[in-house]
């Protein structure tokens, strides 16, 4: 005898697509219901009820990422007003740790997906490029709220980082060359050789249900 109830088809489909086990999906579903106050969808306001998230300087970008259609479905764009549980799971699955049984191709795809998620966080106007201004925005958010920090310092940090990015992606630039912005390919180049798998994942625990056979 195995588990007392058979796993419904849509649950299995969700599990396959997102890589979570059915127990984890159940647990996350309970969390979803808690956040949505038993509604079927979540809106941005529902994220206000998470105190731990208030700590986070890029809270706005994180919440935005949940509603960013580019993260929810391939080849789509724009912002959603509300998301359902399936979308919620999809976003959470970006933070899955790598599995032991993944082959080269899967690993590569996995990595690209995570980096794409990050890229979308930076590229706030959805034009496929991270411009200097967008980069500055991210740095300012990370350092924002601090009354002692001058705006100039945040700027110079961003400019320095941008120049470094340019040198990696384009090589030496002439004096009148303008660096348009970081495209996704450039972004990938910047991350070559850097191990993101250990940085960008959340350790979801594998929970066994207690099965009785009598």
């Amino acid at each position: 005898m195995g588990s007392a109830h058979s796993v419904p088809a849509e649950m299995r489909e969700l599990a396959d697509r997102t890589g979570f086990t059915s127990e984890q999906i159940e647990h996350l579903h309970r969390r979803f219901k808690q956040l949505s106050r038993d509604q079927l969808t979540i809106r941005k306001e529902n994220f206000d009820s998470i105190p731990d998230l208030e700590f986070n300087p890029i809270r706005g970008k994180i919440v935005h990422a949940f509603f960013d259609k580019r993260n929810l479905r391939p080849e789509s764009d724009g912002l959603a007003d509300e998301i359902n549980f399936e979308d919620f799971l999809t976003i959470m699955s970006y933070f899955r740790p790598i599995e032991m049984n993944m082959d080269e191709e899967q690993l590569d795809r996995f990595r690209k997906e995570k980096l794409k998620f990050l890229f979308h966080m930076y590229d706030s106007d959805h034009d496929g490029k991270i411009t200097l201004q967008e980069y500055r925005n991210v740095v300012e958010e990370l350092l924002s709220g601090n009354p002692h920090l001058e705006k100039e310092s945040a700027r110079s940090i961003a400019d320095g980082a941008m120049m470094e990015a340019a040198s990696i992606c384009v090589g030496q630039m002439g004096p009148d060359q303008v660096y348009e912005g970081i495209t996704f390919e450039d972004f990938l180049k910047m991350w070559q050789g850097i191990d993101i798998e250990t940085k960008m994942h959340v350790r979801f625990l594998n929970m066994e249900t207690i099965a009785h056979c009598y």
Partner: protein
Amino acid sequence: IEGRGLAEAKILSVWMILSVVLVLLPSVFRVSLGISHFYVKIVIKIFEWATLQIEEGEDLFPHAGIIQREETSMEEEIAGQHQGRFNLADVMYFSKKGCEAVAEDEVTQRFSSEELVSWNLLSRTNANFHRVSWQLTLVWVIGILIRYCLLMPFRAKCWLGNQVQLICATLGVRCVSGLVHFHNRENRPREGGICVANHTSPLDVLILASDGCYSLVGQAHGGLMGLIQKSCMQTTQHVLFDRSELEDRHLVRKKEHIADKAKLPILIFPEGTCINNTSVMMFKKGSFEVGGTIHPVAIKYDPRFGDAFWNSTKYSMMTYVFNVMTSWAIVCNVWYLPPMVKEEEEDAVHFANRVRAVIAARGGMSVLPWDGGLKRKKVKESFKEEQQKKYCQIVTENGSVGNGSVC
């Protein structure tokens, strides 16, 4: 037919006499017959047997949460690979933290009833304990019958108590089969002091009131609770207010009350709302600014017997009362701690934290830096800024900016 009527009348009268002898009289004279103790002992034995049934050959449900968080702090994770430059990886770190927070957070867990590791035959338990042996199910059914048919009507009769506060409270405690252990009674609050305790449910008031007379400061409730409050107001001096009113008015009234030494000690729950008894949240500094002696009291419920926690945003008073009445018993420990006074150089916040630490240590609860008001409101801006200040220090410390310290 007459014979039957007579027999029924006899049963009824026996029932009445029993209830007077076993419940009312001892309450009036504040004597314990030891019946509660015996009852609780039996209940414990049953639970142990039930847990054993489940435990046999299986692993107990180990973790209430879904995430294993990293033990390293922000400094270690970011600064470690910084090399003096601002780095895209920092965004990664914060987005990971953000995802963890969305999946699960400490605070919200405190506001839902504590999940029990074992099963106490009430319905509040892990969702996974639904596969049980037939013996367990039988016991559970019997338990339901006893609780709903025997215990509850008995208690419902007792629920409408009389005017005198002590008798009323003691009766109330007996009615919910409350078994309260008082420790260190020599530290009990005297006149003119402020008694401060951690808050889990309205039963806290009942329990403390059965052992001493207090003047209550509390949230004015509507409905049934409001009626009870009004009747209490008629017999003793209480201060009722609304949570949303301004602080200064409370301060004034409290000061007046304390100044009159002849009045009863004030009972205050500085957390401001009911917490689920696993931790003590931030104390509101209002009560600690008034001056006077603070008598801390720690109240810890034994969760095996019944969940005393009242989530007022989720359950109405009646639902809560029903839950309490149909639980096995309310067993709790009350520790009276030695009185504390605010020191000269101390500010109210620091003093409040000191008192809170003492209460939490006694009751075996953890101390959270969070505000009980989070049950209803958002986080203060100052917390967020702290985190950002910290991050800023790490980034600029490593000499990336070059124009001195900016944090």
